């Protein structure tokens, strides 16, 4: 079950009632976290008992490590290395075991990768490092388990930090119902649901059709398809993040923000401060800085950036396309570091245009099924596959040319015009309007908000019957 499932929403509301009721009992400090833990496991269970056992075993083992590391922080580096290594090994196994077996010619084995394992592993590695290095005190077993398996963030983040979130779950404040939290939760959740099921899922067929084509794409359809995906992945993932943050807020827990209008970024560094913020911060704190960060000269910084983004690419999936996507971002980040090092500047509008063009082109590698498909799409984007125009225009002499064919507008994209018209509108929305975080900051209860929130949830329920799963579930 996912957060867009109406059934889960009903369960969450019912559970919220039970949770706050339990929290007020005499043993509320134990009962409420235990109930939250059980509910989180119940939410995850439909993904398969095997998957549940894997994530439970991982969380249980990490709980053990945290307790041991917390007993004498900073002194058990071997244990910390062992714990982190085991988690990374599990992550690598989940991502690459199937491929390794197939490369070895062993067939007939199927590994079911537990959904959300990539996110859970990062959350838990960060927790181990923070406790192991004495940055954060270890909390009790139930609180630590509850933090690791907190259901809103379990499947696709945000990648929460132990020091910031676990105390909220452990503290009394989070177990007291607050109308302020509830209204913020409702508002943010409705925004996320609308983004995911109304916007992202509407654009999905355009992107899917375009990327499924092995030939026949032209310049215009390539742009429509790639822009649709650029918007789809943003609205899909930021929608999920809003929903997760909203649901957590209902229980009095403030999860970290994950998106801040990334397509407004004026340079690539700015983009990564706005896109999947919690992943960026994780990579900064646990990979980039340990590798030397920016303190050991420009060359070392560029190498560290390249390494970080190589890992970001590999983390996203198995395949050269993800590696290329990560390496491209690494290269451009390194290039940006050199540019800034030399004190060069460019106009804001130009920076924005170049950044968006690069991010948009790089998504092609992220989305394409394979490298030839990605290169074909890039070629079409550059006009290398020709321009297809409506058949009725074939008699216009001015339009004739070697790269022009009259096979109809947008060949291969069988989307209604309403969906295609949505693309420029949503681009303008991404660039011109405020992000969910900013909207929430300026949120004041009122009739307009109530009608918009109710309308967004109702539309979300109407659309939620079909549509693809959240894109980031595959990672």
């Amino acid at each position, binding site marked *: 079950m996912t957060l867009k499932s*109406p059934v889960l929403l009903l369960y969450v509301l019912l559970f919220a009632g039970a949770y706050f009721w339990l929290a007020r009992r005499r043993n509320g400090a134990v009962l409420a976290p235990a109930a939250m833990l059980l509910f989180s496991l119940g939410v995850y269970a439909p993904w398969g008992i095997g998957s549940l056992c894997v994530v439970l075993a991982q969380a249980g083992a990490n709980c053990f490590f945290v307790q041991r590391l917390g007993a004498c922080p900073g002194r058990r580096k071997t244990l910390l290395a062992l714990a982190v290594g085991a988690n990374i090994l599990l992550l690598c196994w989940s991502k690459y075991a199937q491929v390794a077996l197939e490369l070895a010619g062993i*067939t*007939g084995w199927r590994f079911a990768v537990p959904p959300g394992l990539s996110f859970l592993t990062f959350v838990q590695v960060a927790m181990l490092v923070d406790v192991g290095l004495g940055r954060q005190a270890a909390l009790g077993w139930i609180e630590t388990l509850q933090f690791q398996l907190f259901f809103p963030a379990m499947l696709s983040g945000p990648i929460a930090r132990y020091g910031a979130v676990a105390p909220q779950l452990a503290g009394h404040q989070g177990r007291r119902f*607050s*109308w*302020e939290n*509830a*209204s913020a939760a*409702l508002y943010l959740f409705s925004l996320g649901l609308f983004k995911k099921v109304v916007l992202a899922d509407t654009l999905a*067929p355009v992107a899917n*059709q375009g990327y*499924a*084509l*092995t*030939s*026949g*794409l032209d310049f215009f359809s390539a742009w429509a398809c790639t822009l649709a995906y650029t918007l789809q992945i943003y609205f899909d993932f930021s929608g999920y993040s809003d929903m997760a943050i909203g649901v957590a807020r209902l229980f009095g827990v403030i999860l970290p923000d994950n998106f801040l209008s990334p397509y407004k970024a004026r340079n690539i560094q700015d983009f990564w401060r706005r896109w999947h913020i919690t992943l960026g911060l994780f990579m900064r704190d646990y990979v980039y800085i340990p590798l030397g960060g920016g303190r050991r000269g420009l060359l070392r910084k560029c190498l560290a950036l390249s390494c970080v983004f190589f890992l970001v690419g590999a983390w996203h999936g198995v395949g050269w396309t993800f590696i290329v996507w990560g390496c491209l971002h690494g290269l451009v980040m390194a290039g940006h570091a050199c540019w800034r090092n030399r004190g060069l500047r460019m106009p804001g509008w130009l920076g924005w245009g170049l950044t968006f063009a690069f991010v948009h082109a790089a998504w092609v590698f992220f989305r394409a*099924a394979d490298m030839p498909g990605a290169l074909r799409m890039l070629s079409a984007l550059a006009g290398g596959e020709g321009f297809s125009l409506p058949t009725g225009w074939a008699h216009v002499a001015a339009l004739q040319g070697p790269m022009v064919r009259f096979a109809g507008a947008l*060949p*291969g994209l*069988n*989307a*209604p*015009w*309403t969906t295609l018209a949505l693309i420029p509108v949503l681009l303008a929305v991404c660039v011109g309007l405020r992000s969910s975080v900013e909207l929430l900051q300026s949120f004041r*209860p*009122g*009739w307009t*908000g*109530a*009608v918009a*929130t*109710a*309308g967004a*949830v*109702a539309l979300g*329920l*109407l*659309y*939620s*019957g*079909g549509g693809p799963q959240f894109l980031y579930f595959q990672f």
Partner: protein
Amino acid sequence: MTHKQFCLRTLVLLGLAVGLMYLAGMLASPNLRLSDEEYLANLRENSEFGPATFLQKRARVLVIGDSHSYSGFDYAELARGLGTTSISSCAMGGFYADSLPMVVRLLRAQEYHPAVIIYGFSQRQLFDGKNKKAQLAQHERALAPKLFPGLREAARNLWTVILLQLDRKRAMLSWPGRDDATFAANSGPIAALRPLGAGRMAAAAKLPGLATWDEVIASAKISEGQRGNLAELCALVRETGAELYVFCLPESPELESRYPEALRQEVLETLSVLSGCAMRVEMERPEAYGLGDEHFVNRAMAFGYDYAKWRAPGFKPTGHDFDPDHMNLVGARVFTRSVAASIRASSKVLPMLQRPQP
């Protein structure tokens, strides 16, 4: 407005919106607002539309089956062949013979008596499967006779109607293979593919689809009680006087060649339960219908699909290229023409039905 008032008012407004949606969804009946052409196009490659509408449509011809039926029948072609557009479909993904009694119960409860029932059979419907329990539970939920539809069904109805009303062409265009022009564009290259060749299919042998089928076939065992489940359909046919036609939807020659002969005979023997009540029970090899592996290439009928790559040395098809058990549109038309001719030759009821051409 306080935060408490905001929450309560939002919930009341949401309740009103959902209530209105529910009422509208109950009243919505997508099939009645569609042209025959659109309606029939929607039945193909759509696991939800047929099951969601067949009780409203109450057509004289009812197709029952699994995903092989919604991919292997071209309903527009079936209408042309049978001479009637009064066709509905209850083809559900993952349908098992165990689900037949549920359909029979529903037809009885709703007093829906089709004149012709076409049962799209496939061998896997008799076997046990990993997710069989979950599939059956899902079918039970979908087929449970209800006085009022659930919110989800109501929302789905409304959604279908809104989509079709907003953009009537969308239904036709959401699947490229529904378009006659796409059929024409694909049929030539597919015909030119023949034969794919043993070497090419050997390269395909590691396809996830075929590997999964190898596992299914290796562990295939006809579940207990399947004869009884099939007999339920027979009982209904005898009660209502409907004509029953049973066709085993052909799978690709590559896949069919992997079934052991003994298993095939066992399936045939089980299927013989229907012989007593069916006008026709057919379980032929794909070649008997003129189908080859090429009719399972590019099931999505993707525009501009590069068929020539099948002839390139070293080409290894992916799951996207070859679906071992679901026909593409060209295969579906070839098969449906044959089936429709066969039904028409035997049927006594069809000549009496109204015959508007689609």
